[in-house]
């Protein structure tokens, strides 16, 4: 591998916090940028539902009211967008996938993959192991307030240890599948798994 060319006169801004929280190629932002491929969907809470499926079989389904009644969890996590921004210490509230599985009466989830389906047609694939044991939730609140539509409200997946496109906005359905399949961005050149610490941004990374 050749050394990269030096950008003459470039000094950069060194990050103000310890590097061990910022994955390679990322930089800190205090904003919360919005990135979506199409219009923001607006789903009324009265017609909202969340479904859990194994292939085509329904394992569980919750209306907004039922979903709100499930045990809540709060987390403080760092998030990392593939477009290179990272945001530290973000506060979320929602229902963990573990809680959801329990509410559906499942002691063990089907394995090994999940496809997430969202309002607006967005999809993304995540291994089951990355969603359970407290690693992920269906988030409804950000910084103490209901999640705004442009950030994925009323409910989005939060799986903070993967690049943020995996934390699907406007999620409505989790479908367990026997083989890994690419979702929306994964079909368009982005990495199937998306680990920011291994800088898995694009296919082949």
């Amino acid at each position: 591998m050749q050394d990269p060319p030096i950008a003459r006169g470039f000094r950069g801004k060194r990050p103000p916090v310890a590097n061990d929280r910022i994955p390679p190629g990322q930089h800190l932002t205090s904003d919360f940028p919005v990135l979506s491929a199409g219009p923001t969907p607006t789903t009324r809470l009265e017609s909202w539902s969340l479904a859990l499926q194994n292939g085509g079989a329904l394992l569980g389904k919750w209306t907004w009211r039922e979903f709100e009644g499930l045990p809540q969890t709060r987390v403080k996590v760092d998030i990392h967008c593939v477009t290179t921004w990272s945001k530290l210490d973000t506060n979320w509230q929602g229902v963990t996938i573990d809680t959801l599985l329990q509410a559906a009466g499942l002691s063990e989830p089907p394995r090994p993959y999940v496809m997430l389906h969202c309002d607006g047609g967005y999809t993304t694939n995540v291994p089951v192991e990355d969603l359970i044991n407290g690693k992920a939730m269906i988030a409804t609140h950000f910084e103490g307030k209901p999640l705004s539509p442009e950030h994925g409200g009323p409910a989005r997946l939060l799986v903070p240890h993967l690049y943020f496109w995996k934390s699907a906005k406007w999620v409505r359905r989790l479908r367990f599948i026997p083989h890994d399949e690419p979702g929306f961005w994964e079909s368009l050149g982005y990495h199937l798994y998306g680990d920011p610490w291994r800088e898995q941004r694009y296919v082949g990374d």
Partner: protein
Amino acid sequence: MSETNTLAGPQRLLWRTAEVREVIDETPRVRSLFLSVTGWSCHRPGQHVDVRLTAEDGYQAQRSYSIASAPEAPQLAITVERIDDGEVSPYLTTEVRVGDRFEVRGPIGGYFVWTAALGGPLFLIAGGSGIAPLMAMLRYRAAVGSDVPALLLYSSRTFADIIYREELNQLAAASDGPSVVHTLTRQQPAGWTGPARRIDRDMLTEIGIAASAQPRVFVCGPTSLVEQTTQSLLALGHEANLIKTERFGPTGAPR
């Protein structure tokens, strides 16, 4: 690693060295860089590229920029707006000069893309430097001689902030050229007869392509512009799956 990909299967996108061949100041805050990139594979209009800068001590910073040039152009162009407290854009808009080198990786993204095969009409809506990927589409449309009807509705703060103003005039003046409508939101020159406010539903009704024509709509700009514009388009009957968006900038959400 081989440059030619004869085997099936995913090929990793490589960092490639880009050399700055030309620099054009588009507005006081915006600069276009024309790059020659060894081994660059052809992009599609609307795609973007990752830029990586390496300092002398090895420190690196990378960002994504839309590609502004047509695939047919001899050099890869990006158009960068300076963010005053930014890290990469101040370098690219003030420090960089012809002959400087850094790295690029791409092309990236395959959704916010228009090619002539996708048909039209083509309805482009831009705010500020969000014009860049849409300019790639208009430059491509001209380069391949497409006669797909095209309309650009472009929102800038002031007349001096209009990026590519001369080239847009030339494109619009050509036979089969696109229609170009500017709206100036902050300040208008004396005698300005065009729209002078943010893009709203009335403007989309008066100036835009009707939903019944089923235009391919591409919207790129600040989050507020994209959110408001796309909600208005949906209300006017445009189908969500014909509206593609790229947003930049914060929402003003709680910090």
